[in-house]
């Protein structure tokens, strides 16, 4: 080994604490990046594989009842390769040992037992036998949630009749990679399952022989979906189509895409933060080493080492640190990705969710960290390169100090000499000082970034499910129910309050934008299903016009006063012009609301209801469930508490895992910045400090000089970090925003306090280590020779 390399290794050994701190910061950034990119690659690969091999459709549509004779005409639409029609019905299940009703989505499988699109992957048991009745294949998450295995039976209420179904297989479908009930925001594997049945079975039970109510198709080649959608809608219009949509509005696909988008966002943000901190720390440490080794550099050059060799020596030091950090971070990233991928298995079901290594990402992260490390230290290394040896032989001139502005403002001698030293030191190197403050502020902000998501989600849940929606159950009907049904429902024993709603599928147009969205007609002053504005104040439903939630307003770029063209996709399918009268705040979904009576008027219909919101006496919940199950008109029952619970079990768990990682990383940054800063100040000033001790200053007075600076930096960094944390969180919120849910920018005082506390603890801890070194200052040695 070359002696210069041996020097490098020993020098690194000497500064192992500092090197380790920087390595950790780099590793944290790299790990987050690698984790995101590999999870992304794994998810994307598994998705693509599943979609391709199991022929996931491109366009989806539904109708009330369309004749099979329409299918050849659909197949003739240019660009369409494969069409599959089917029956899809949501029914209530009667599951023993489960109080509340569960909803099953029944999907028909063609007579020959083979889907042409959205094929099933049978993970257990077998596929349906053609023409065999009473068999079902059920979705894996639902089977697991209830412990169902092939051979078990269960009862479903199909078209008012309770029917026994025997489970023959457990399956996965590209259409239900994540299984979310429409209208819900989170998967609820216990209360929502997907069942596949023989077509003949369903046709008979639902009286739909020779007809279909759902259709999906695949393109022959890459084609603008809008053209096909237009023709499809035209064909199906007479049969009650509520409008076709492409994958972007397919629920499972939407969730997957959102997850992928979020992983991408994280992959950009994490390295940006961590690597800039690491570059700063490297700069600090390497600058110090180079000025400390000024005379060694001079000696090397005097003996004929070239500037290039000397520069490379220090660059190698940087590279050893950055490459070690990258390597460790990569391994940590793999481990994290493997963990996250495992977590994904719970929600996202693929025939195989294979952990994939994104090789390009690994290569790029090595390039990125190396570049950041070199850029961060380039000025310091260049100083070593250009250091004229003769000048380096002479002792460094004393640094220039000036009385600071603060001292000039304060009366003379009002500051102690220690404090004056601290202030002059800070102001002598304003760039270095501000970078130190910025580094610490980054630690504070990363803490906030890691923690605020939980605040935000809690706020969102509270806003949406406690303040806005106060019902316990949401019941929806297969067909709009008459006033009599509603009256009966409200009189059920145990139902304390009830409100009805009318929802209707529409396509809204504003200027050149359009959007498939359901309009929900509400009672004028709803008490259960309330709408709130941003200030959490209830908004009453205006008599005329339409209210949009904030996301829909954004999608359509519409504001109060704008006139929307609303194409109703049900019943008589009128096209209406309605004025936007208000925007309401909602963190989930894309919705529009109107006065129910006004909606009836526009649709020229009687007072029917699509569903009802019920407030129920908790003690009589079971009776209410029993009653609801026995009513053939009831399509689904959503239980608010169950939604909250499953949300907490899924999203919260997901966030918690991330949060743990991020908080650890924030602590790494804080310790890295403070510890390095303190060690460097100590080494730069050990002579001054020892001199102070020799001329009679006490240990604590000497510590003031050193730790005072760190304390001031920390105090300045906390509010700055809050600000940066707020900005980064805002950026992250916008990256996390999806049509299904938005995370509000809410940061609690606890989070701010916690962020400050962690950084203060890191400061204290680093201060303590450095303080111990002050006690061991070599008072005589340090004065005798130059270092």
């Amino acid at each position, binding site marked *: 080994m070359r002696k210069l390399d041996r020097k490098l290794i020993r020098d690194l050994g000497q500064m192992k604490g500092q090197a380790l701190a920087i390595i950790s910061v780099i590793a944290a950034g790299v790990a987050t990046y690698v984790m995101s990119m590999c999870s992304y690659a794994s998810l994307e690969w598994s998705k693509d594989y599943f979609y391709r091999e199991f022929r996931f459709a491109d366009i989806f549509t539904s109708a009330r009842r369309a004749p099979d004779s329409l299918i050849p005409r659909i197949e003739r639409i240019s660009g369409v390769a494969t069409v599959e029609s089917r029956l899809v019905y949501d029914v209530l299940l009667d599951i023993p040992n489960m109080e509340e009703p569960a909803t099953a989505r029944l999907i028909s499988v063609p007579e020959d037992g083979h889907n042409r699109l959205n094929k099933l992957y049978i993970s257990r048991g077998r596929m349906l036998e053609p023409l065999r009745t009473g068999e079902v294949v059920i979705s894996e998450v639902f089977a697991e949630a209830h412990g169902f295995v092939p051979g078990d039976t269960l009862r479903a209420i199909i078209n008012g009749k309770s029917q026994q179904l025997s489970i023959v297989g457990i399956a996965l479908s590209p259409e239900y990679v994540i299984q979310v009930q429409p209208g819900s925001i989170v998967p609820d594997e216990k209360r929502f399952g997907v069942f596949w049945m023989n077509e003949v079975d369903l046709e008979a039970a639902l009286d739909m022989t020779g007809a279909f109510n759902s259709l999906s198709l695949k393109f022959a080649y890459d084609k603008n979906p809008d053209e096909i959608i237009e023709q499809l809608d035209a064909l199906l219009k007479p049969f009650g189509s509520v409008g076709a949509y492409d994958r972007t509005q397919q629920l499972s696909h939407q969730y997957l895409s959102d997850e992928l988008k979020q992983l991408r966002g994280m992959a950009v943000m994490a390295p940006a933060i961590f690597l800039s901190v690491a570059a700063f720390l490297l700069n600090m440490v390497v600058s110090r080493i180079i000025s400390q080794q000024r005379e060694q550099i001079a000696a090397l050059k005097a*003996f*004929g*080492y070239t500037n290039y060799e000397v520069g490379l020596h220090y660059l190698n030091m940087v590279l050893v640190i950055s490459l070690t950090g990258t390597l460790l971070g990569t391994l940590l990233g793999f481990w994290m990705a493997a963990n996250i991928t495992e977590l994904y298995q719970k929600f996202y079901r693929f025939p195989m969710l294979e952990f994939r290594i994104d090789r390009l990402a690994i290569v790029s992260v090595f390039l990125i960290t190396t570049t950041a490390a070199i850029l961060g230290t380039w000025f310091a290394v260049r100083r070593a390169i250009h250091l004229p040896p003769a000048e380096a032989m002479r002792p460094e001139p004393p640094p220039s100090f000036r009385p600071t502005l603060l001292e000039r403002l304060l009366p003379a001698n009002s500051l102690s000499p220690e404090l004056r030293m601290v202030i002059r030191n800070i102001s002598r190197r304003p760039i270095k000082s501000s970078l130190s403050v910025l580094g610490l502020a980054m630690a504070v902000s990363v803490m906030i970034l890691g923690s605020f998501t939980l605040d935000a989600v809690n706020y969102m849940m509270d806003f949406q499910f406690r303040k806005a929606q106060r019902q316990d159950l949401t019941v929806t009907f297969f067909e709009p129910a008459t006033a009599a049904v509603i009256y009966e429902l409200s009189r059920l024993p145990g139902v304390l309050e009830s409100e009805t709603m009318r929802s209707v599928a529409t396509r809204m147009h504003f200027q050149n934008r359009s959007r498939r969205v359901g309009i929900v007609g509400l009672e004028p002053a709803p008490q259960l299903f309330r709408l709130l504005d941003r200030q959490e104040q209830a908004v009453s439903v205006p008599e005329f016009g339409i209210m949009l939630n904030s996301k829909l307003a954004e999608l359509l770029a519409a504001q109060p006063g704008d006139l929307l063209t609303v194409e109703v996709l049900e019943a008589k399918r009128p096209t209406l012009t309605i004025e936007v009268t208000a925007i309401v705040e909602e963190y989930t979904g894309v919705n529009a609301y109107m006065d129910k009576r006004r909606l009836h008027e526009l649709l020229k219909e009687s007072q029917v209801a699509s569903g009802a919101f019920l407030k129920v006496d908790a003690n009589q919940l079971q009776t209410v469930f029993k009653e609801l199950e026995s009513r053939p008109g009831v399509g689904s029952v959503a239980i608010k508490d169950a939604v909250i619970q499953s949300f907490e079990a899924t999203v919260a768990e997901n966030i918690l895992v991330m949060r743990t990682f991020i908080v650890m990383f924030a602590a790494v940054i804080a310790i890295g910045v403070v510890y390095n800063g303190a060690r460097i100040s100590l080494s730069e000033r050990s002579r001054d400090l020892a001199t102070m001790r020799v001329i009679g200053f006490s240990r604590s007075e000497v510590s003031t000089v050193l730790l005072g600076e760190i304390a001031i930096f920390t105090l300045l960094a906390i509010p700055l970090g809050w600000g940066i944390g707020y900005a980064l969180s805002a950026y992250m919120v916008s990256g996390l925003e999806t049509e299904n849910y938005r995370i509000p920018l809410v940061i609690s005082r606890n989070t701010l306090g916690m962020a400050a506390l962690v950084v203060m603890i890191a400061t204290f801890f680093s201060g303590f280590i450095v303080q111990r070194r002050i006690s061991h200052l070599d008072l005589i040695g340090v004065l005798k020779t130059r270092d």
Partner: protein
Amino acid sequence: METSTVFRAVDIAKVYRMGEVNVHALRGVSLQLFEHEFVVLLGASGSGKSTLLNILGGLDRPTSGSVFYLDHELTASDDTRLTRYRRENVGFVFQFYNLIPSLTARENVELITEIAKAPMHPLEALDLVHLKERANHFPAQLSGGEQQRVAIARAIAKKPKVLLCDEPTGALDVQTGIVVLEAIARINRELGTTTAVITHNAAIAKMADRVISLSDGKISHIEENHTKVAATELEW
């Protein structure tokens, strides 16, 4: 003995900036150094002797004037050529040794032998300063005199044509200083290396072939010493 000129400096001046002040270190110095000779550059602190040595060693450039090493004009050389000149021809010994603290005595010497053209064995160099036994000690484990002898071993290991010593005994006590000077004198004697030692200590001048005195950036006088004494007989 027929001697040829190794260094020829013509009217060199040097001004440099230190902190916030201009320092006139040299104000027109002309001199010659000859092959194999042992020269002492004598002067008080601030007389410009270190600056002169740095310029001869190719570490620094004069503000004006020219310097020749054999037939190379150092003052006309660029950085790369100066580096090569130092690498191939010059051995330096500094007042504060400038050893690499993270390398052992032997490794400090090897640091130089690795890049030299025809160096001696590192242990041979250490043997010349009687430190072979301490080869595996780190600088912090050596006394000041021992460190300076390692520095001498390091300087001569490449078998340089010239050995330039900047206050080699400046940080040492008398006994240790004498041991170090003895080592330098022996190198000069045995290897024939042209040696320049700068010092403010007039006593050391007695062991030189020639003494060049500097004061206030100028040569005050040059004296040939016909009665060279051994380092062991020096007293101060």
